């Protein structure tokens, strides 16, 4: 079982996300995360899916997804040739006494404190999955009240792999 990040460029039509996620559920493929957002050209949407399976399955996934009418382009984002980022918003319970400890950890990770109240604060952290996991582990001593993660978005490095569409 290995992990794969795939990037799709799809027509920005209503229901396109449901068509893609429907394909995954009907064929029993895993989705670890899926993110979608409109591209610089509003006719298209960029979708990043993190999935897993053995080699045959990963191969099938790409072929099946490519068959969908809405899908313009599909490519695997290999770790060595790509950057991945995820955003996490973490609400931590903390009083004024311990607040500095958390801020210190956040600084090391270049995380931002974006909201402070008397007994809690919200941290914004961007990075790849490992970085977010590592940060959450370091917060072990604190109570995490709420956690919102966006899932991975990614792009290939350099200009070789860029798809231009008419």
């Amino acid at each position, binding site marked *: 079982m290995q992990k794969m990040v795939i990037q799709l460029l799809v027509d920005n039509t209503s229901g396109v996300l449901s068509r893609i996620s429907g394909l995954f559920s*009907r*064929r*029993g*493929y895993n989705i670890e995360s899926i993110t979608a957002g409109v591209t610089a050209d509003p006719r298209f949407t960029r979708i990043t899916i993190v999935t897993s399976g053995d080699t045959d399955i990963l191969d099938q996934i790409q072929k099946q997804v490519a068959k969908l009418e809405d899908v313009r382009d599909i490519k695997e984002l290999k770790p060595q040739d790509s950057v991945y980022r995820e955003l996490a918003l973490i609400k931590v319970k903390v009083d004024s006494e311990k607040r500095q400890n958390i801020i210190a950890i956040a600084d090391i990770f270049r995380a931002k404190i974006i909201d402070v109240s008397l007994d809690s604060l919200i941290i914004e952290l961007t990075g790849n999955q490992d970085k977010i996991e590592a940060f959450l582990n370091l917060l072990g001593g604190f109570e995490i009240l709420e956690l919102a993660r966006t899932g991975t978005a990614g792009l290939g490095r350099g200009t070789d792999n860029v798809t231009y569409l008419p």
Partner: protein
Amino acid sequence: MIGADAIVKCLEAEGVEMVYGYPGVAICPFYNSILNTDIHTVLIRTEQNAAHAASGYARISGKPGVCCVTSGPGATNLITGIATAFADSIPLICITGQVDTQLIGSDVFQEADITGAVESFVKYSYLIRDVNDIPRVFKEAFHIASTGRKGPVLIDIPADIQKETISKFRYPEEVSMRTYKPTVKGNMVQIKKVAKQLSAAKRPIICAGGGVILAGAQEKLRLFAEKFGIPVVSTMMGIGVMPSDHPLYNGMVGNNGRAYANRAMNESDFLMFIGARVADRAVSQNGFDAENKTLVHIDVDPAEIGKNVGATIPIVGDVGCILEDLLSLELTVDSRKWVDTLKDYRKAFAEYKAGKEKEKQSLDGQVDPSLFVKTLSSLLDEDAVYVADVGQNQIWSCGNYVMKKGRFLTSGGMGTMGYSIPAAMGAKMADPSRQVVAVCGDGSFQMSMMELATIQQEKVDVKIFVMNNQVLGMVREHQHFVYKDHFSMIDLSVGSPDLSKIAEAYGIHYKKITSEKTMKKDIEAFLKKKGCGILECSILPDEVVRGM
């Protein structure tokens, strides 16, 4: 014990007596295990009708109806039946076989993604991937189907899961679902608001829908209306909330309803929708204005409130529960003048109708459809179950059926042709002591006539009435008015079978009404005969339901 045995045990624990279905390899383990029980299995002739039969069974027994078919085409054939039940909030448990777990997604023989396909027609669906989940899934499925706003739940079970050994079978006594907790009790603050507005109302009216019947709250509704003198109109699904001759009952509303019922609803200053979803067919008639009245909307489904019309006072909860609270209110409503006005509207209509009937000449060999339904309903038992199909026959039935203490079943939301015969069979099997009749047209009859075989095999005493006009009358009528008689795709006169021969082929009795004069006698004699039969009457193809 294997998975298939566990499924059967779950059905037994839920008190299931009847399973309608059709086998196939992917569901064979289940149909093998069910032989060891007292649960009666009914081999239907096409899967869609398994769902319709289960629907008829559910509506009369008050328990979820169960149907069970194989994977692939078996499952996809079931979809129309599921959608029909969903549109009318009928509780069904639909079990489908599925290909082996490891083959799912590889397009093997008879594989269909049925949970995906029915997503928009079910209250919930499951694909069981672990044999040990069977007891919990069935407990939840029955709970979801039969509580809150009722509806169909589908359970898809791969064949290998049915054959796998289950480590320990224990049927849960209770359901614990964090995300599913339908509201039962109505909010008292809202109920007090209703009391305040109701006492100021001059022209109050209740529009009762199928939700009242699903909640078994017909009696409470009648008591509530009587206590405060509030007239009642009903939607198509609400037919039967009150006897037709009740002084406060004012007919069916909607674009196919009675003009006086619509007028009553439109002229009211205080309108209570109870267990009605305020659908397009009910309120899309000229003159309905939600703005000039106090609008109370009582429904078990919060999503129905405000979907089609904004309510002044919304109340979410079980209709029966809320009616009980409303019944305990102490206040007086001065509606006598209003009740008399509505009586005058009805009287004027009756006179107009009588005049029209007199004008109409009785034709040789044909019968008047309204007169036919009226005559038939006058000859039925007080508590008979009348199952109307879809099309003109449905509207003639709605308009002329005289409700006593019986039930009126039809496919209201989806308008699925061919519903009446399988649903009537299910209804009769749910309560064999009641008289059950199916009334359909020649179009809808041909959509489900294969079930005559099932009816014969099960020896179900269902009387079938076919109003034969040799056309698809509802569409013809639409083309008559909208397309100026530019008729297309409506002619059934060529190729349709001789119903007397169909009856003979299936070994059931048959009679044709040849004139209005002998109609009463013919129906009477037909109803007295034992066993299933077809009574056919001829209707002129250009009869219309508009302005009926």
